[in-house]
């Protein structure tokens, strides 16, 4: 029995030296660390501290990391060097298999960014327990914020993985006060162009909402390729991080200018 007792002591001593990921139970767990929770709310608080004197500013749009972590870091470092860029929006597919480990790697790389960032959920992020992890780590799937009298609307348009239709009522409601702002920008992972994931009815509904509410630009990821469509509403699809690439949007009063940056 003495032997068993000694073993138990060893086991307990071993356990007491644990750090965060000392024991892991399954790839599918959703146990988000407390310091990694509510990231969207924390970034919104950071954004409030940023004040600028002119109407002109830039934001960056990065999307679809999957597991191209080195390229994400390269892009983040480039954005850090550019003081004109005030914040970053990430267009979804934070994870590839929607594993907590992948969300944690993304979170850790984004800690290097020296400005606030906001995410929309991608289809890959919804799988397994991904939607639980996303909700804990970032927050709401649909949300909007105002910066410098411009409105930014971040919309969850994932259908197959979520098993539900996009909440177009929420979108209509959040776009309805568009006349109060200089410009409105909309973000959703799945685009209404190139991709055929959304039904024709959904595409029609989304694009009508954009037009009826004076949205300047609708930004997307998902297809992993570049696309730009000009019109009353412009549509932009930014390629995935398979290559180190991102877009910047320069906002000038009632106008804007998109630039694709390939590193």
């Amino acid at each position: 029995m003495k032997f068993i007792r000694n073993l138990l002591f060893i086991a307990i001593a071993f356990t007491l030296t644990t750090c965060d990921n000392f024991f892991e139970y399954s790839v599918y767990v959703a146990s988000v660390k407390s310091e990694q929770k509510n990231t969207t709310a924390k970034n919104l608080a950071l954004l409030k501290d940023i004040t600028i004197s002119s109407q002109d500013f830039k934001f960056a749009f990065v999307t679809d990391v999957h597991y191209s972590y080195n390229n994400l870091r390269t892009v983040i470092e480039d954005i850090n060097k550019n003081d004109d860029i005030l914040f970053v929006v990430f267009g979804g597919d934070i994870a590839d298999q929607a594993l907590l480990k992948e969300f944690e790697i993304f979170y850790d790389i984004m800690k290097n960014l020296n400005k606030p960032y906001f995410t929309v959920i991608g289809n890959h992020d919804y799988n397994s327990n991904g939607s639980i992890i996303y909700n804990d780590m970032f927050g709401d799937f649909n949300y909007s914020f105002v910066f410098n009298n411009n409105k930014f609307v971040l919309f969850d348009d994932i259908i197959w993985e979520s098993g539900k239709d996009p909440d177009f009522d929420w979108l209509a409601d959040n776009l309805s006060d568009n006349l109060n702002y200089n410009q409105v920008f909309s973000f959703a992972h799945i685009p209404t162009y190139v991709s055929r994931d959304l039904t024709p009815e959904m595409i029609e509904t989304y694009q009508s909402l954009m037009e009826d509410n004076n949205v300047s630009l609708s930004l997307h990821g998902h297809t992993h390729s570049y696309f730009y469509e000009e019109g009353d509403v412009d549509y932009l699809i930014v390629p995935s991080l398979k290559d180190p690439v991102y877009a910047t949007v320069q906002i000038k009063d009632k106008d804007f200018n998109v630039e694709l940056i390939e590193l």
Partner: protein
Amino acid sequence: MKNKSIYLLVLLVLLFSKSYGQEVNLDKEKAWYVPDYAKVQFAGNIGFVSLGVGYQLFNKVLYSELLYGYVPESASKADRIHLLTIKNTFPIYRKEIGKDLIITPIAGFTTSYEIGTNSFTTLPEIYPEGYYVPNAFHFTVFGGALLHKDFKNKKIFSGVDFYVEASTVETYLWYTITSSEVKVNDVFSASIGFNFYF
């Protein structure tokens, strides 16, 4: 889903009967299918706790085990997770360090199958072909050390192993190899366990 699990169990039983058929009659006191030991493990990406039975094969060159792993809601922070695992441990060498006490460096790999809603083996019909890669199977690789103690006066068990391992999952290993942003200590974690010999 239920059918899938039954098929899998039958398959595993068949596989086991085949590989262990050659062990028949080696030990006259024990039928070939009677396991050599029972196992309990904590952590290691095959469950919060996993329980099962093991066989010492090819003159103790390979320890092969069939395990059921469970993660309760309190640990998963989501639904309960159920896993079926085949674990293969290779003892590298044996060194006697005391009376009836042997230390053995070990290495091996596991194959886990998730029974439940977190994963799939065939892509659901809603998706275009090749939209996702099946994610119900995961593999881990591990290395560690095992202490074996023989009990001379057998009461319930004739001996016990205690082991400590560091392990990682194939996906994590791939990320740490392909990306300098993912450090080795981000992807390796610990597990401990006991084998109780009959």
